[in-house]
């Protein structure tokens, strides 16, 4: 266990009182900035980069580790409490998290997010320590056909969150796909749906869409109905996670870690798609699928573990190849370069102390985050006892800050209002909001990978399924699509044969049930 001995040295570097102080300061700063919607960990590190100029490299990286995890966690706090995702990776958290908060279970949602993040972050970082050199070779073999196959799988999974009415679900999804089209086409450089507005050329930020549809739409909806319904006070439940919460959380935490880490480690994986896959998976596996859409704790635990595991996975290509595969990793790379350190194949040989110190400080930052935030969860949850008019005014205020902060553009503020109104209209006519956001996230990526795969194969369709990975994913897709149909046929036959025999019907029922549930 050479790696573990090195890690121990790393801890020796990181665990001095001064360095611990930097870790605490980093976690606090990161959480504070991460709480602002629109500012994710990448932006938080970029903004705080100049603060660390005067520090020596090890201390700076310890602080970054704190800011990083703090920022990740801060993003989920607003998702849960205010239905206002701080960054695209915590969009999915808002779905169940905010429902839990509305049912007086905000403290549990925050706690499961914090513990899940901690577990996933810790396992993920340990995986980096142990596996980095061996998995990175596999990771770069992933190409456009493989990514596109994963996108197809994700699109198939979408059908289970379309809501009670498939037609409305598809309308919402298509709406999202259209929003995703806005901007300059990366392959040809042509503008699409930009209407001559230069600020639209880069496309519309997912955070702006999500905050608009979720937070603003809901604030408007509540405002429109508050006069007619008596204001009900949000109940405040127990402050700690109960035994049932623990029992229902640990599975999603571990599964989320397993989904998130590989996505982070491959160059075009990202953190959004795995969170969404985790959500769908938890919904399918849950013993309480009827709770999804109404505050199921699994729907918070899974995605929150996933996005942290993905963040840890992103360190694999960064540290071993110098490949920044996420925005945060790119900023970290810039930070490395500020200290004259060039991450790449030679980094582990040239700067072992720094790398192991960084990994150790990630683990420390993670632990500090848990220690600081777990006791704070009930305190945060009290925020929701603010009377609704003030609470929603506050949400509007934070949402606007977030819409502006994402790109520092007033055009985004206008877009935010437009999406807020759209979110209101969608609620009015019973269109689920989630498929639209998934469309915005998935659409452009699927298109990019599809076209890239076809470009690389020079237009040959076979280029879409020319790797073992893509073929196996398509096989899974075929299974997911055909299995329910098959089971239904079998079930019908069974009913024909012997109507009293109901022993095997549990599984198919659950599948059918979950696909017709999940309204937002």
């Amino acid at each position: 266990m050479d790696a573990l001995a090195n890690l121990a040295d790393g801890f020796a570097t990181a665990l001095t009182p001064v360095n611990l102080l930097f870790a605490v300061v980093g976690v606090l700063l990161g959480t504070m900035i991460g709480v602002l919607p629109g500012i994710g960990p990448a932006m938080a590190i970029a903004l705080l980069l100049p603060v660390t100029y005067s520090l020596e490299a090890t201390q700076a990286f310890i602080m970054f580790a704190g800011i990083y995890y703090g920022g990740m966690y801060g993003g989920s706090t607003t998702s849960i409490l205010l239905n206002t995702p701080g960054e695209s990776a915590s969009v999915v958290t808002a779905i169940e998290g905010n429902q839990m908060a509305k049912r007086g279970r905000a403290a549990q949602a925050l706690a499961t997010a914090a513990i899940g993040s901690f577990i996933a972050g810790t396992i993920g970082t340990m995986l980096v320590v142990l596996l980095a050199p061996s998995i990175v070779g596999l990771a770069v073999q992933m190409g456009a056909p493989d990514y596109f196959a994963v996108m197809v799988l994700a699109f198939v999974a979408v059908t289970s969150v379309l809501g009670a009415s498939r037609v409305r679900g598809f309308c919402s999804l298509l709406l999202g796909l259209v929003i995703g089209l806005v901007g300059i086409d990366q392959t040809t450089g042509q503008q699409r749906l930009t209407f001559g507005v230069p600020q639209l050329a880069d496309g519309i930020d997912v955070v702006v869409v999500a905050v608009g549809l979720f937070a603003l739409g809901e604030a408007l909806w509540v405002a429109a109905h508050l006069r007619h319904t008596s204001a009900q006070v949000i109940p405040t439940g127990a402050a700690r996670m109960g035994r049932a919460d623990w029992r229902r959380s640990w599975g999603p935490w571990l599964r989320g870690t397993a989904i998130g880490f590989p996505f982070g480690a491959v160059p075009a994986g990202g953190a959004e798609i795995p969170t969404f896959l985790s959500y769908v998976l938890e919904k399918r596996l849950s013993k309480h699928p009827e709770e999804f859409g109404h505050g199921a704790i699994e729907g918070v635990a899974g995605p929150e573990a996933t996005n942290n595991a993905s963040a840890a996975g992103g360190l694999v290509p960064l540290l071993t190849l110098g490949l920044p595969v996420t925005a945060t990793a790119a900023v970290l790379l810039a930070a490395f370069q500020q200290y004259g350190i060039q991450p790449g194949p030679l980094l582990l040989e040239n700067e072992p102390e720094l790398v192991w110190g960084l990994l150790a400080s990630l683990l420390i930052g993670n632990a500090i985050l848990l220690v600081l935030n777990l006791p704070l969860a009930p305190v945060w949850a009290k925020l929701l006892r603010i009377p609704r008019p003030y609470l929603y005014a506050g949400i509007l205020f934070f949402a606007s800050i977030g819409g502006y902060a994402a790109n520092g553009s007033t055009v985004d503020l206008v877009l935010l209002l437009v999406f807020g109104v759209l979110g209101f209209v969608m609620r009015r006519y019973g269109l689920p909001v989630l498929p639209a956001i998934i469309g915005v996230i998935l659409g452009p990526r699927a298109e990019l990978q599809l076209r890239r795969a076809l470009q690389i194969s020079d237009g040959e369709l076979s280029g879409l399924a020319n790797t073992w990975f893509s073929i196996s994913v398509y096989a899974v897709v075929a299974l997911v699509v055909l299995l329910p149909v098959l089971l239904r046929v079998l079930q019908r036959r069974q009913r024909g044969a012997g109507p009293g025999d109901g022993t095997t019907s549990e599984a198919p029922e659950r599948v059918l049930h979950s696909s017709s549930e999940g309204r937002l």
Partner: protein
Amino acid sequence: MSRSTWSRSAATLAAVALATTACGTTAGDDEQDTAAASGPVSGLRVMVPNSPGSGYDQTARAATKAMEDAELAETVEVFNVAGAGGTVGLQRLVNEKGNGDLLMQMGLGVVGAEFTNKSQARLAETTPIAGLIEEAEVIVVPKDSPYTDLDALVEAWKADPGKLPVGGASNPGGPDHLTPMLLAEEVGLDPTTVNYVPYDGGGELLAGILGKKLAFAATGVSEVAEQAEAGEVKILAVTSEAPVEGVDAPTLKDEGIDLTFTNWRGLVAAPDVSEADRDKLIDLVTEMHDSPEWQEALETNGWTDAFMTGEEFETFLTSESERVQGVLSGLGLA
């Protein structure tokens, strides 16, 4: 690199000369007096037309830090106006007509974006202040690529351009896109037949090369230098005038292709600034360039010095703009 070595030795020489005169006579004091009379510049703002952490952002922040550390300017504010490849920032700059306290960080990417984004605001309206740094592009192939030199690659490329996808980390109009297009033009290949595959940033592109998804790629030398040193990729040629220090590859000219093309960054000011303001800004940037703080920044970031000011930079901007427009209009993008 040779240029930066040259300017560094020039700076050393100047410092030695100054020291000698200061020892012998009082001339040094006089000079210091005039410098003190103008004092450090205050109230300067530098706009970065893309997001925090980007290449432009790092350049602008390093430059302002050098200005502050060398006490040439007091508390320079750097702010980001991101969007549309820098043209949102460009529009903002053009709207600030006559503002002598504002600089915009820019570079080759903004020149291309001006065309691909059909920007209303034009770089030609702005006041060129100085070119700062440049970076060579490289033509790079995976290790074990069948193309062991540029000749072999170009020959195969000309035979069937569609079958040789070329990757780059910039969108159409950016440096990595322009490089293969200019190369194609130079070797007699129609740029519209080039199968250019854009990637999101250097990391993703590098994965495409390492995973052998691409026949070759064009990108900035710093993106792949480390991998080349480790033998993970092979650099067939660099696009700069002179070979790049520490990179074992010939220039395009050495390979018999008459093309030099580098990615560069510089500073422009708002349109119609007064002559005095323009001179003030040029002086400030010149003094910043001569400061040891900036030379140190060049070194830590691995940037190649490409300093030029005023008229010279203006001529350079115009010729680059024409060149980019030529390529992009052939592709239907300008």
